[in-house]
């Protein structure tokens, strides 16, 4: 039934290139790891572009049967619109972070290999492999392995700084990630017992609304929500993400969380039967709404810039959960809008949040601290970083034109079209609160520096430009005409064929 499509081999390349690159970088060590990482990540952008082009040209998902064995016995790699878009997003953010890391994570002169830089470059590749596995995997158990790859890569990146205060928050992060994985695995055990396959497309064709399926869905959702730090499981995220070096924080907040999101999409729209899913979706959205409000309010109150940005992640992740009841509401047009809005929120947040963390890191390095109340002079000292922070903030607030605006507008109109106006209120309220904390930072940065103001010497210009470029991408996503998001619809299961 399923067969390898033309261009399917690209999917193998997208996965094996970073995985093999990591192994080789690990053996070569030291400065060679940096060179391997940059080369592989640059090639990764090319492969992602080719995959996007192939998916668009075929107007159908790319499929690759691994080992030539069709499911249920074998397993597939699949790139539909969502995978293709997320893969490109990940490839660009990874490459940008790598370019930023050339200045901040270079092996110091005089040694052949140093701990933090070597781990950074190896785990950058590891993360690329894990994300490719998570976005392309067509089998739920294979996705479990991908989640574990992601856990190891993310944890190592989070611990890069090696600061004494850090291990507590990162250990808590690890425990949450592991519990999330185990709950997910528990669900796959039930699904295999129920259907005799873990292939996502075969499950979509066979799904039934029985107790094992629903319990599996609940357990897996809880596990993935723990990994995404959905309210009320959000407490681990801010200290864990804020404690990492900026380049790692950008990846953790921008990308790692999105892998669990893609798995959640697979689960809810492919594996779970639509009618009970539609009944349960408002719970998910309500938790998302709570995350938006609580996360934004906490971000508003943070004294530290990096913690502020991390709490903003809690809030922005909340938006992703609003799409579930809207997609499942049964109105084909509104469903399509919510789908686009959700996925676009995931991609635009990836660019915006990466830009924000990188900019925040640069500002903190220049001023020697990251206290929000004492940012005066930052605007003069590092204009590009502050502009990057502001542009990314526009996207998070949902001010046009920006990717974040388009995403939130699509979700908002979908909420109104399906008569669920309360979610629209949450989106607007969240935007106002986001405006509040972004304003706090910007206003502070633009004031005059205090008299006894000392700043470190300016670093190289490259990192500032990287942060600015990422912020510009998150804004530019909003300039694309809606029709160009057709890619995201490819391979999406049709839910509610009109009223």
């Amino acid at each position, binding site marked *: 039934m399923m067969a390898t499509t033309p261009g399917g081999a690209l999917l193998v390349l997208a996965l094996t290139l970073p995985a093999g690159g990591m192994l080789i970088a690990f053996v070569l060590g030291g400065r060679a790891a940096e060179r391997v990482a940059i080369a592989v990540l640059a090639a990764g952008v090319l492969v992602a572009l080719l995959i996007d082009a192939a998916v668009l040209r075929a107007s159908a998902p790319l499929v690759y049967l691994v080992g030539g064995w069709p499911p249920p016995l074998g397993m597939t790699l699949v790139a539909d619109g969502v995978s293709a878009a997320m893969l490109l997003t990940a490839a660009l953010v990874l490459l940008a972070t790598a370019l930023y890391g050339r200045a901040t994570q270079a092996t110091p002169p005089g040694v052949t290999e140093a701990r933090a830089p070597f781990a950074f470059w190896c785990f950058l590749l590891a993360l690329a492999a894990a994300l490719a596995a998570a976005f392309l995997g067509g089998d739920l158990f294979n996705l479990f392995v991908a989640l574990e790859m992601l856990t190891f890569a993310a*944890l190592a990146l989070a611990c890069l700084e090696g600061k*004494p205060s850090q291990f507590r928050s990162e250990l808590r992060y690890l425990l949450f990630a592991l519990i999330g994985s185990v709950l997910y695995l528990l669900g796959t055990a039930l699904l295999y017992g129920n259907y005799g396959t873990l292939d996502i497309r075969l499950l979509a064709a066979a799904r039934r609304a029985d107790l094992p399926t629903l319990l599996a869905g609940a357990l897996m959702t809880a596990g993935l929500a723990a990994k995404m730090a959905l309210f009320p499981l959000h407490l681990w995220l801010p200290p864990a993400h804020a404690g990492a070096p900026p380049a790692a924080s950008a990846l953790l907040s921008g990308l790692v969380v999105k892998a669990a999101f893609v798995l959640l999409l697979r689960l809810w729209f492919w594996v779970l039967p639509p009618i009970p899913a539609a009944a349960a979706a408002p719970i998910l959205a309500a938790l998302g709404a709570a995350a938006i409000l609580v996360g934004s309010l906490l971000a508003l109150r943070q004294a530290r810039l990096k913690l502020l940005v991390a709490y903003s992640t809690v809030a922005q992740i909340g938006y992703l959960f609003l799409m579930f009841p809207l997609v499942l509401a049964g109105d084909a047009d509104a469903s399509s809008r919510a789908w686009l809005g959700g996925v676009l929120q995931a991609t635009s947040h990836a660019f915006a949040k990466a830009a924000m963390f990188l900019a925040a890191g640069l500002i903190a390095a220049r001023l020697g601290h990251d206290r929000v109340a004492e940012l005066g002079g930052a605007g003069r000292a590092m204009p590009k970083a502050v502009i990057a922070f502001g542009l990314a903030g526009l996207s998070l607030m949902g001010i046009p034109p920006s990717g974040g605006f388009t995403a939130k507008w699509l979700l908002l109109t979908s909420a109104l079209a399906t008569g669920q106006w309360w979610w629209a209120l949450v989106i607007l309220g969240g935007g106002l609160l986001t405006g509040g904390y972004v304003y706090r930072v910007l206003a502070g940065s633009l004031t005059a520096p205090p008299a006894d103001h000392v700043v470190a010497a300016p670093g190289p210009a490259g990192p500032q430009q990287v942060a600015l470029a990422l912020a510009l991408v998150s804004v530019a996503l909003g300039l694309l005409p809606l029709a160009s998001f057709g890619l995201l619809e490819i391979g999406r299961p049709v839910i509610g064929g009109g009223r």
Partner: protein
Amino acid sequence: MTIYGLLGAALVALGLYGLVVQAAVLRKILAFNLLGAGVFLLFGVVARRGAAAGLAADPVPQAMVITGLVVAFAATALAIAMALRMHQITGAATLAEPADE
């Protein structure tokens, strides 16, 4: 066979309870391993139910458990390495925030 299904469910419950209730990190890691064992046992029950073609159990879930066991071991090792480092630096054995922060 049913009895092992019940055992698996009980281990999952015990493990989850232990993860929440135990304070010491090492005890949390032990509870996590109990939880994992319960999950794997449910895979084992699923495999046993699928006995066919002259095999005592479906080989596919068995292979998944073997993969899972190795991954769980690696995860345990990482958690322990982090717990030891935390203990070495701060002397703490739990995840509770120190009172002075």
